[in-house]
Structures are given as C-alpha cells and as structure tokens.
C-alpha cells in the first residue's frame, strides 16, 4: 500500500516532532515519557525497515534485532532507570532555564532550518527522501545538543545525550539502511554504560551537594 520510503519519512518526521515536544516540556517525568515515545518511534522505524527487507529478500534482516534491542534498552530499561533516579531526587520541575521555552523552541526551529540549508548544499545527495532523512536526523542531533546546554539539571542533560544518540542512530539507519550488526551493538552498550555511569553520578552529586543543579558544582568539598 505504502512505499517503504514514505513510511520511514513520516516516522522520521514524527521523531523530529517528538524532539520539539521534548524541548517544550519542563517536567522531568515528561522528559522521560517523551524520550520513551521517541524511542518507540525509532523502534517502529527499525522494525518497518526490517520487515520490508525480509519480505523483499526472503532472508533474515538484522534490523529486526536492532528493533528488539531498542525496545529492550531505550523503551524499557533506560527510561525505567531514569524514573528510579527521578524518584530519589527531590526536584520535579525545572524552574530556571538559561533561555525560556518559547525562545528555545524558536532556536530549535532555526537549527532545523539551518540543517536543511546545509544538507541541501551537499552536492552528492540525490533524491528528496535521502535529503529529508538526513535533515531530520541531523536536526535531531542538533536539538539534543541544544537541549543539553539549555537545561541546568543533570537529568535533562542525560536526556539530551540520549536524544543525540537517537539522532545518530536514525541517520545511520535511514540513510544506509543499518550499519553492520556488531557496530550497532557496540554503540548500544556504549550508551548503556554511559547512562549507568551518569546515573550513579547524579546520585553522588545529589548526596554531596543536596541538589543536582550543575551551577553548584563549582565549589569543592572534601
């Protein structure tokens, strides 16, 4: 009924929309919810790709394993862990931003337009779909980066890091239809380890400074 590119295109746009929704949020639990939604969409993209390839080539495709891994790690495990951290730390709402929300949404839109412009300057990309996939995923990376620097609290920064990773994964998945299996798994375990370490850091920071505001990390304590 639909062409594969058509579905992937729409899914990639939905993932970009979820990044914008993430920037508009200010509650930590809605960060986690939105991230979970974004990862589900990413898993759906990987799953569609795998199913289409399996139907076309009649052999097993590694994108299915990617889909299952995303569901296991990014939909179930990492958000669950962040929720647990969130419960142990007393703040729930992010109050003081470096930049307020409407302006940061507009900046993100500017970033997306900039990415579109830059991608359109690359001469070797042919085809509207490839340009669209690349712009959406690189915009996602940029928005994650911006999210990381615009939020003061540590959990927001972890989420920003994860969004950047989602963007990279999406770029690899949609433009090259999946990197080699072993590389993907390596990246996944990298992210997992990074998030685990960051989670432990958040606990430690919270214990020794009574807050996870990164502004307070300036003074030393023995």
């Amino acid at each position, binding site marked *: 009924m639909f062409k594969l590119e058509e579905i992937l295109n*729409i899914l990639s746009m939905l993932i*970009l*929309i979820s990044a914008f929704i993430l920037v*508009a949020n*200010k509650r930590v639990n809605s960060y986690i919810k939105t991230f979970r939604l974004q990862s589900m969409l990413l898993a759906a993209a990987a799953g569609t790709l795998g199913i289409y390839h399996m139907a076309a080539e009649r052999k097993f495709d590694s994108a299915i394993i990617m889909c299952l891994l995303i569901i296991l790690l990014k939909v179930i495990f990492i958000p669950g862990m962040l929720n647990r951290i969130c419960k142990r730390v007393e703040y729930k709402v992010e109050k003081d931003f470096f930049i307020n929300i*409407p302006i940061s949404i507009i900046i993100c839109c500017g970033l*997306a337009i900039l990415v579109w412009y830059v991608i359109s300057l690359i001469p070797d990309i042919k085809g*509207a779909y490839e340009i669209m996939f690349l712009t959406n995923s690189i915009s996602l990376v940029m928005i994650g980066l911006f999210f990381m620097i615009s939020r003061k609290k540590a959990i927001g920064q972890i989420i920003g890091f994860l969004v950047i990773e989602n963007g990279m994964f999406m770029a690899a998945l949609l433009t090259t239809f999946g990197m080699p299996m072993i590389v993907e798994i390596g990246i996944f375990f990298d992210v997992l380890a990074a998030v685990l370490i960051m989670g432990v850091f958040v606990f430690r920071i919270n214990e020794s400074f009574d807050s996870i505001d990164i502004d307070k990390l300036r003074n030393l304590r023995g």
Partner: protein
Amino acid sequence: MFQGIVKIVVQLIITAALAPLVSGIIKKLKARVQHRKGASVFQGYFDLLKLFKKDVVVSHNASWIFTATPYIYFVSILAASLFVPAIPQLFSFGFIGDAVLVVYLIAIGRFFMALSGMDTGSTFTGMGSSREMMISALIEPSMMLVLFTVGLNPLVGSLSFQAIYKGFAAPGWGFVSPSYLLLLISMLIIVIAETARIPVDDPSTHLELTMVHEAMLLEYSGRHLALMEISASIKQLLLITVICNVFIPFGSNAGVIQALGLYVLKVLVISGVIAVIEINSVKLRLFSVPNHAALAFILAVLGFMSSFVFGR
C-alpha cells in the same frame, strides 16, 4: 439561485443542530472516564431552551456594545461556518482567499467579546478579555500559517476552501506527507486553544481565577448568554469541520447522504480525540500557554518549510 439558498439553509441547520451535541458528547465522554454518570448528551439543547426563556439583565453601566455583542458574535461565526460547509456538495459561495476571511470573521467575534468584557467594568470580565486577547494573538499566526500552507499545496493551489476541499478529496492516501503531519498536530493545538479546552482554559469552571472564556461571559444572562454559548459551540464545530475536511478527507466526494454520514462519524471521532486530550492533561498556568503556542507555530513553520523546500 434557489439551489444556493437551499444549500445555505441546509448548512445552517446542520451547524446549529450538531454544535451543542458535540459539546455534549465531549462532556459525556469526560464524565464516563471519571466514573461519573454525567449529563445527557442533549443537555446543551435543554440549557439553551431554558436560557432563551429567561429574562435579560443588563448592567446600568453597560453601553450598546454589551447588548450588540451576542448578535455580532453569533452572526459572524455563522457567516464563517457558511464558508466551511460540512461536505463539499454544500458549497454555495466562496472566492479566492476566503480562508483568510474565515479566520478574521472569527476574530471579529472575539474582538467584540473582549470589548463587551471590558464594557461593564467588572474586574473578572476585564481580566478574561485581556487573557483571551493574549491567547488569540499567540494562536492566530499559526492558524494563518497552517491555512496558507494547505492552500499553497501543489494539490490545491488556491486559498479558497472550495479548492482546498477539492484538492484533498482525491481518493487514496496521496495527501499524507510529513508536512501534512506537522500541520495536523499544529492544527490540533490550535483547535484546543481556540475552543477554550483544558490545557489552555477550562470550559467547565464558572468561578475560578484561572478562567478565560467563561470569565468574559460572566455578566451575560438570558438569551444573550444563550447566543454566546451556542456561538462558542458553533466555533468549535467549525474548527473540527476544518480538520475533518482538510486533514481526513475520506469519502467527501461520495454521494450526499454517504458523505454526510461520514462527516458525522469524523466529527464524533475528533471530539473523542479532543476529550481524550482533555482527560489526560491538566490546566496550564497562563504563562505556560506561550510554550504550547510556540510549539504550534513552529510546527506550522516546519510544515511550511517542508512543503516548499521538499514539495512534500
């Protein structure tokens, strides 16, 4: 000529008959989810009948604006609804750019409503007016941008609702594209803000410091209040109709009876979606409304970009 008049009358009857029902259905759904029994879906009609029978009380300090506003609001919204008929067969008139006219017909009604809120000098109504103007100033640009993008779509190529309906009515899934998705989500946020639904304003409160739309109606009574209420629900139906015919254009070029049935079904589905959004969200602080408005605007801008840069 005669045919045109029949079409106008049919459209007015559909609008006026369906509008309170949509509000009633949303209320009923909300009540069922909260494990309440809730009022009947036809309660809106009974309320209107009762209000039309009651006397009108007008403050001594009120000027002519206060008494004229309900009629102006009602007529402007009804006129706007003639440009956005339920099904394409009911188009009686239209011209290039009538999409812009619809937005500003809604704005006229809102302008007079805000004036009447400030007219009596009551503090509550004045507060409601200034809030309403703030929200509308935030929402109107995104609505214009959505309509422009839809109108300039290669399938349509004109800013009149007749061309928009016709352009999207082609069978199949040709209308689904990334820019369509962005515009649809933007439009949902717009509809919720325009119809004073929960994340922006609570339609079921009558004496709260946070109310916006209800605050402006505090001084009205009797048939004036009835007119204001029915105009609000017609506005809601109008915006839902825009979503129905522009974003879910299935079967609108079938036979008249079939298309009308599908239209009612689509309206019910969208009211269900609005009710679900309302159930799952809490009322925002007034100063958080710009965040959502910015989201709606930016999604519309991205839809515009995507439609023009990629042609999709």
